[in-house]
């Protein structure tokens, strides 16, 4: 068990070393998010009236959705170079420790993209009086991210060998995570508009997000080991 934990931590620590040595990998999704938010404001114009919260929530999650997808799509690039991924498969590294390590790295990189996006939307639209920077909304967003990250690692591994990666995202990743987008948007709206508390959301949208997260993570742990086994 201890080896398992130390292997996971090794992958996480060295994952950050790579991200740190290669800032473009997480800067470009954040910059993409900023540009999208600006373009949203240009196209939507000033937001007031009853639908303010709805529009802001939609804008935030769509922006986060796309920029996260950019970082997930390129997530395994460093491992693919110089035969690192195949060499990892010849090491006595358990599939779950490997997956867990990658999952934690993706989660933290995902937070590095998601939180600034939420902050920026609230900051850019401060005049509208609606701010998403509240604990419940961020809890919903992070729960959504937990499911998307679990699926993101698995899909990145699966599409590693395939040539047509670009087309696979709109056809696979977005449809699969559509329920996450729906639940996150609806949950955040009910928090902001009808100020529903988190507990009651548990039996509705937040509950669905949790189920999605747990299911994706379990599928990840089970299937990742299978994917990297000797074929």
């Amino acid at each position, binding site marked *: 068990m201890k080896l398992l934990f130390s292997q996971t931590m090794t992958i996480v620590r060295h994952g950050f070393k790579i991200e740190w040595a290669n800032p473009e990998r997480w800067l470009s999704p954040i910059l993409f998010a900023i540009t999208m938010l600006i373009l949203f404001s240009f196209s939507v114009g000033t937001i007031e009236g009853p639908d303010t919260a709805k529009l802001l929530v939609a804008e935030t999650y769509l922006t986060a959705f796309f920029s996260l997808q950019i970082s997930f799509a390129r997530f395994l690039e460093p491992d693919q170079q110089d035969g690192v991924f195949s060499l990892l498969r010849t090491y006595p590294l358990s599939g779950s420790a490997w997956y867990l390590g990658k999952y934690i790295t993706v989660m933290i990189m995902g937070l590095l993209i998601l939180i600034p996006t939420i902050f920026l939307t609230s900051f850019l639209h401060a005049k509208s009086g609606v701010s998403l920077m509240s604990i419940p909304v961020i809890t919903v967003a992070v729960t959504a991210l937990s499911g998307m990250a679990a699926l993101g690692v698995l899909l990145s591994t699966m599409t590693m060998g395939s040539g*047509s990666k670009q*087309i696979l995202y709109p*056809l696979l990743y977005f*449809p699969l995570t559509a329920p996450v987008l729906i639940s996150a948007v609806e949950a955040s709206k009910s928090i902001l508009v009808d100020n529903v508390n988190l507990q009651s959301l548990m039996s509705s949208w937040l509950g*669905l997000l949790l189920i999605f997260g747990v299911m994706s993570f379990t599928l990840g742990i089970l*299937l990742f080991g299978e994917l990297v086994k000797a074929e």
Partner: protein
Amino acid sequence: MESEKLHVGMSLLMIGLVALTWTWGLKWAPTELHMGEVYRIIYVHVPAAFTAFFSAFILLIASIVTLIKKESSAGLWGRSVAEVGLIFTVLTLATGSIWGRPTWGVWWEWDARLTTTLILALLYCGYLILYSSLAAGPQRNKIAATLGIIIAADVPIIYKSVTWWRTLHQPPTLIRPGGESTIDPEMRIALVSCMVVMIIVGAFLTYQRYRNLALAEELEKLSYEQTP
């Protein structure tokens, strides 16, 4: 080749069964009180939808078998059932929107079932494209099986979230395409028989497509034997 006659016979049987159940739905089933004749589209729309989602279930089983039994041909079964599933999802969407026109006045309605079918169609396309974009071999079977499990596991969640989302925005209209709420016994028998036949047709098409894929693989094997 005696099996050739068998398959021709089977296909004729299929066509006969479909013709029988369709005429049953079109002619002998009673007209619907509210919607008149146009409701009869249900006899092709609902069976197609049911087969589409049922093939997702079969894809799940084929994928699990592929992962457990390495040498099995379940990989090809998964690939065939995904293709047939795509045919039926597209068919469901087409008949759904044709039915929608007289019912809601528009070709597309964000009905929970139709929306989930639309997402399922995208997932099937993704599965098939990923399958063909990978190099043939055991690794492709494993990746396709993994994806098959993910898709099948995700369908209920998609359906749940879309249904909640749908009821949040529009209260359910009285008669929704595919809704069995106001169906009376006579219609029910006709509908069930249509569904059963459609499942059989789906299974038959999947089996034939599987045989083609197996034959193609066999030819590939032969071609390798010829190369020095």
